């Protein structure tokens, strides 16, 4: 049995036609199912566990990167298969998973090509695509073996599925991409150096693949994981191997 979790933004009128046509295609394929709507304060884990008890085998997230992150950050360890139907803007994870945006995604879903994905574990929740620590004075310890420090502030970006895009500076037109490898989390450290009176300038990034990392700051620092912002003083990041069973497309990037 399929359960579809729609993001709240899909209520907007401009998304109605695409949602209608998706529902028609899903019915044609014989994989239509119960539809749930995601609210801001919905505990996705409780909802999904409830549906699993009622016999749900596949939970399909319908929305964008934020929806994907909001649902899977809590419920990645649920005993079911996850699917994804990307709709609207801000869909970068879909490309990594090899799922086309819009109605064509239903075909990928119907083919049920399943893969076990690694997910990242951050303090008390999962992250699937990317984690970003905003620029602050930090100390990073990798795998309890070596310590990385910079003279001033640094920004840390941890990539699991999503590639890391960066530019040397604002004038740099060429966008550089680093694709994360499978079986490891990729940590990108971008030190900031003072430029002029007020400004800061990004330095070239350092890249460290790892399985466990601890980030400590003298002051609380902001962390954005799968689009959700929190404040932390110590962050422990780990890799959870093959935690998530996901329906993916043939053109996936891993």
């Amino acid at each position, binding site marked *: 049995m399929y359960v579809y979790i729609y993001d709240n933004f899909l209520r907007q009128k401009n998304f109605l036609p695409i949602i209608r046509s998706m529902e028609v295609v899903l019915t044609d394929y014989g994989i239509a199912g119960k539809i749930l709507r995601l609210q801001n304060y919905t505990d996705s884990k409780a909802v999904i566990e409830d549906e699993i008890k009622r016999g749900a085998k596949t939970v399909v997230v319908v929305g964008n990167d934020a929806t994907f992150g909001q649902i899977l950050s809590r419920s990645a360890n649920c005993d079911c298969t996850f699917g994804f139907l990307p709709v609207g803007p801000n869909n970068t994870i879909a490309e990594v998973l090899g799922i086309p945006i819009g109605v064509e995604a239903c075909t990928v879903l119907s083919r049920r090509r399943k893969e076990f994905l690694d997910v990242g574990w951050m303090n008390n929740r999962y992250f699937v695509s990317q984690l970003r620590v905003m620029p602050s004075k930090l100390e990073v310890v990798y795998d309890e073996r*070596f310590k990385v420090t910079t003279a001033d502030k640094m920004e840390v970006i941890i990539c699991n599925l999503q590639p890391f895009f960066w530019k040397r500076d604002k004038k740099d037109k060429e966008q550089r991409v680093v694709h994360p490898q499978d079986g490891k989390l990729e940590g990108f450290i971008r030190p900031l150096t003072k430029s002029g009176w007020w400004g800061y300038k990004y330095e070239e990034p350092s890249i460290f693949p790892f399985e466990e990392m601890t980030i400590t700051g003298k002051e609380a620092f902001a962390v954005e994981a799968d689009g959700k912002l929190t404040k932390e003083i110590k962050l422990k990041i780990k890799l959870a191997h093959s935690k998530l069973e996901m329906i993916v497309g043939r053109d996936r990037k891993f």
Partner: protein
Amino acid sequence: MIFQRSAPKVIEEENDQINNQSQQHSQDEVETVVGPSVSVEGDFASEGNIIVKGTVSGSVFTSKHLAVEVGAKIVANIRAGSATIAGEVKGNIKLKGSLELLATAKVLGDIEVKDLRVESGALLYGKVVMLGMDLSEKPIKTKTFKKTEEAAPQFVG
């Protein structure tokens, strides 16, 4: 591709191509990068290639290639598959493959390597041991002429 020669005429060109290919290959496999203005302390180990542009202290280990770029500083013992050094290294280097010291390299420490290439201008202070030398073979004794009375020409009067 149309303008590419079917067979390179000069052997040097062939070697250059191989070098370029190997460089490209190593660039494709880049896994760990220590950027400039970043300092790493501790046992720095990686399963893939390492590029150092900043500072590393402690120890460095990789089974693949290590590249120490200009301006980089390593104060550590290094164990790697192969290495190209253009920066500063203080510590012993032990490699399974080749070591290339570029013109800007400064190495202070002992080196154990299979294949060594030193560019003019590179600075090296330490003992170099190259693998492949069979030490069980006794060194060939060269005859030395002793300044004895026997050896001296005798004139019978």
